[in-house]
């Protein structure tokens, strides 16, 4: 209430609080004040400029005095000396527009999607049920993902609010911080993370506290890594699948199965073009940007993004599928295929795929030999470049532009 009273007149809020608790208070205050939160996937100057075109009255609420976001800025109010406001129950209408989320840059220009309060709540209630958080015990959630990102927003902020559980306010960064934060919260506890952070944690040589549940999303996790996470954290690891448009719709226990299980009520159907999701919290039929193969009424396989499809000499695959195969090779730490933008070296005009791989213990012959066992030879990378890491962003995604410019540089050096 106190924060709601401090909000300026504009109807759109960019909530830039890095502290998860302050973010949540700001989000709640915005709801109460009937303002709409804007949740872009990044806060680069270009994205901020696009936001002002989308909502000219947008202002930024921040808890960082060094915040450089180029918008009218409001500081998160200081609690010291503030008058307490009498508690009163809040009633937020399910139809109220709570947020706009934007598709991430890997699919092109950011597009806004409306999220009503009711849809957000329904989505994370299904999630809480699937994760087993409604067992009457009090679970503590530690997140390495920012609350501004859709996955972090759903799986730390909203999940805790709607399942009667608690989250830890920090966003621990270094492996030692993650371990100490996780170790300091009461059990049962859950770590909400990404493949990048999990990989770093395993490699850091720190003592890993036990966790009752580890959640991963943003990019597919290899089965090898999933098994190692389960062993070292003495935990269950669940991967979450969803999209900006639908929110989360499925999960899988990656160490045990490649099949995804839909949240209750959600169904998939396919037409000639693509697969659609409907039902449950999704409400209206929504096209998915991924190639999904329905294997049972509530199960499916994920074969990668539609925009990732590659067709070489009549053979079809997807970059995500190829990436999955590359990352499944023992000894491969990370790897990504990409389509070279202009392949002038080709005399046949056939566009080949190339790949970057992080595999300190392997050589090119060993990786290629393994790949031959897994993929059609037309998809073997030309060239296969060994690098020390991939240019992943801080949510673990590999933006197309960044990957291509990184690959171009790597090829020049090779």
């Amino acid at each position, binding site marked *: 209430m106190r924060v709601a009273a401090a909000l300026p007149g504009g109807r759109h809020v960019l909530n830039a609080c890095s502290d998860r608790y302050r973010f949540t208070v700001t989000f709640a205050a915005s709801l109460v004040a009937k303002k709409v939160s804007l949740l872009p996937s990044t806060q680069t100057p270009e994205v901020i400029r696009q936001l002002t075109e989308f909502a000219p009255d947008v202002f930024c609420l921040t808890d960082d005095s060094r915040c450089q976001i180029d918008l009218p800025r409001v500081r998160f109010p200081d609690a010291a000396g503030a008058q307490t406001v009498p508690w009163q129950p809040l009633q937020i209408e399910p139809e109220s527009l709570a947020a706009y989320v934007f598709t991430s840059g890997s699919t092109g220009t950011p597009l806004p999607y409306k999220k009503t309060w009711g849809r957000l709540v329904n989505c994370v209630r299904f999630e809480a049920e699937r994760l087993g958080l409604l067992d009457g015990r009090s679970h503590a959630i530690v997140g390495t993902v920012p609350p501004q990102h859709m996955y972090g927003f759903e799986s730390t902020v909203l999940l805790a609010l709607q399942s009667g559980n608690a989250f830890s306010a920090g966003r621990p960064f270094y492996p030692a911080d993650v371990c100490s934060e996780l170790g300091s919260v009461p059990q049962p506890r859950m770590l909400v993370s990404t493949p*990048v952070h999990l990989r770093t944690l395993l490699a850091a*040589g720190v003592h890993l506290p036990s966790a009752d549940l580890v959640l991963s999303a943003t990019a597919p996790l290899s089965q090898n890594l999933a098994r190692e996470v389960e062993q070292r954290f003495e935990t269950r690891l669940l991967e979450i699948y969803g999209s900006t448009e639908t929110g989360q719709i499925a999960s899988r226990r990656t160490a045990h199965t490649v099949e995804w299980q839909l949240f209750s009520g959600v169904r998939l159907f396919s037409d000639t073009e693509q697969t659609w999701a409907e039902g449950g919290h999704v409400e209206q039929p929504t096209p998915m940007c991924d190639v999904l193969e329905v294997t049972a009424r509530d199960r499916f396989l994920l074969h990668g993004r539609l925009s990732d499809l590659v067709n070489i000499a009549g053979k079809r695959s997807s970059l995500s599928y190829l990436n999955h195969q590359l990352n499944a090779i023992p000894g491969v730490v990370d790897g990504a295929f990409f389509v070279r933008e202009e392949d002038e070296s080709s005399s046949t005009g056939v566009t080949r795929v190339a790949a970057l791989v992080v595999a300190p213990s392997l050589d090119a012959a060993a990786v290629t030999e393994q790949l031959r066992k897994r993929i059609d030879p037309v998809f073997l990378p030309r060239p296969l470049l060994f690098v*020390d890491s991939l240019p992943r962003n801080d949510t673990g995604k590999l933006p197309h532009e960044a990957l291509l410019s990184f690959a171009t540089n790597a090829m020049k050096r090779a």
Partner: protein
Amino acid sequence: MSDKASPLRQPAPPADNAVLQREVADLIVAALNLDVAAADIDPQAPLYGDGLGLDSIDILEIALVVSKQYGIQLRADSEENEQIFRSLRYLADYIAAHRTK
């Protein structure tokens, strides 16, 4: 054991750090596959954001290399953290003061 370890925990004099700075610069360039020569990294320029232009995943990568090479687990909650990535010089000074190997 402690006789051997204690001198290393003292901040090394600046003259020695030039060598360490170069060593750390080599590590960073190798770990991140940067398109700059280690010798060209300005020891005074910020590593994060502007300057060398590293992002948070790079910083995680450096943290891993630093933990393996020097036996230091970086922590965001230590007061020095703000300082550590202010420049190559600060990072090298921090390593010199806290290395365990």
